[in-house]
């Protein structure tokens, strides 16, 4: 049993990271913590792909002179390079948005932002009463 689990060790870590990340995204009200969760969630996928690319007994996919060398699959690594770039862009954009949210709402806690939004909604209706703009 333990040996079997050890053999799929990487996949267990993938599942753990995935669940931790997704749980943080859903459960945290703090926007920065949400973004941390999102990054962990995305990282779990990077590990998933890298693990898929591993061929038992294979070496790093760098061309050698030996004719019958067994290589690991390099394609998932390349795909994940792309996904890492996407992840960085997502995090950067998210952090930039959090800065702007902090500037205009004065908070990065979801419930406080919601309260501020409800105030804005009430202000809209008051401002748009007939004749108010005339």
């Amino acid at each position: 049993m333990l040996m079997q689990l050890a053999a799929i060790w990487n996949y267990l870590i993938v599942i753990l990271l995935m669940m931790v990340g997704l749980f943080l995204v859903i459960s945290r009200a703090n926007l920065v913590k949400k973004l941390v969760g999102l990054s962990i969630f995305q990282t779990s996928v990077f590990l998933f792909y890298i693990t898929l690319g591993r061929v038992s007994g294979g070496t790093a996919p760098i061309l050698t002179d030996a004719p019958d060398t067994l290589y690991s699959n390099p394609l998932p690594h390349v795909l994940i390079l792309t996904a890492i770039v996407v992840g960085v862009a997502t995090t950067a954009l998210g952090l930039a948005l959090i800065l702007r949210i902090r500037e205009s709402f004065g908070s990065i806690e979801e419930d406080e932002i919601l309260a501020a939004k409800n105030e804005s909604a009430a202000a809209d209706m008051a401002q748009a009463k007939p004749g108010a703009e005339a």
Partner: protein
Amino acid sequence: MNDGGLIAIFLQNLPVLVVVIPLLLAPVVAIITAPRLAWAISVAGVGGAFLAAILLQSITESIGRVTYHLGNWEPPWGIEFVVDSATSLTLVIMTGLAFFATLYARASLMSEIKHTDLGKCYAAWLLASGGLFGLVATGDAFNLFVFLEISALSSVILISMGAGADRRALSAGFNYLVIGAVGATFYVIGVGFVYAITGTLNIADLAARIADIGGGAALYAGFGFMIAGIMVKAAVFPVHIWLPAAYGYAPSAVSSLLAAIATKAALYVLARLLFTLFAGVPDITELAVTYVIVPLSLAGIFVGTVMAIYEKDIKLLLAHSSVAQIGYIALGFGLASSASVAASFVHIGNHALIKGGLFMAVGGFVAALGSRANLASFVGIGRRMPITATAFTVCGLSLAGLPLTAGFISKLYLVRAILAEGAYVITALVLLSSALSLIYLWKIIEVMWMQPAPAKAPNLAENPAIYVPLWIVALANIWFGVDASWLVAASRAAAAALLGGGL
């Protein structure tokens, strides 16, 4: 190089040009500080894509299917762009609406966004458009993920641009970023599973190998993750929660662009996954459409409609109504008969015209009023801004599905397709929801036209730069309501290509 050579190059590279023209112009536009020039280049970029899409449509109508190998790498090793009847119809609809939204954008964005941000805004606009076109054109499962993220990140930027007028745009943008990223990551997990068992990423090659494998836990997991991820992007109920705020608080021109093309691209991908990629495992796709997609679409239709009935803010109301309309499209795909899939394509086109037009009109009102458009500020606006209000009413009646409008054709073909399946309960539900949608439309139309404007309310100036593109779209709503033969024929061809194992 002479002209003949250039035209030949243009024609040979059509599938990739639809995507590349907007994407390559984006960095050019980003460094331009003159808003008018940035806008002109954007119009040229999206217009170029529109032209390429029209040519592609005429090619697929005569020969059926065009492929393009990026960098001349043979598939399945290289990335392939595949355009068949379904792809080219979706592209024509998307590029066309994006083109008119871009024409319209200048005056509307001027009034809602800081002028120094306009260049960057157009850059994000081009990236979002190009990314969405790429989503439809690509024949590679991982490349699809990249386009998904290009379009999502640039859409978030566009939505957040609404912060100048309303700070709630920021949190709407953030929510879309997080939910969209989770959706895209789900998709990419699914691709990982499918890649693990097939060793390929080319969609046509994947479809063939999945048919050979025929089942297994990894395949089903991959299927579930991919479909769930794309449903988030397509805003199918219950993962639509990002949509109302995102469309409601984005600048009006952005709402018009995204409502017309963004979810349509994701719905197209959903259909591609169900009917092309996983066509070889009919047991699981049938399970998914019968027990997941059809019930969720119906739930979305009612939730969206009821939310719209209770909403007082016009843009949020239209966004809730979009959730319902997405439900109709997903329902057509879910029933999976050739007639219902064709009806879905008809509605993809018509709903793009309807919602594109409605958001354009709301942008006109917002620009003139200088405040948010809601039921209180709409009192008597029909008399104060007759040109815009009439176009709004035309598109609104089309949304409700009145005869002689495009919306009627959609409902007609959808209801016919459902009846042909013998699903009387679903037919009744669709008709009931259509009747309910009249409530929220009538609510707006009554306030606009039947109530007198407040005393001393001045007549508001209407800007031709806003109402000319708006009226083009409004007239298209009538045109496709009177003579739908082209759209219906193209949609039937699209359904045939999609269900016939297309790629």
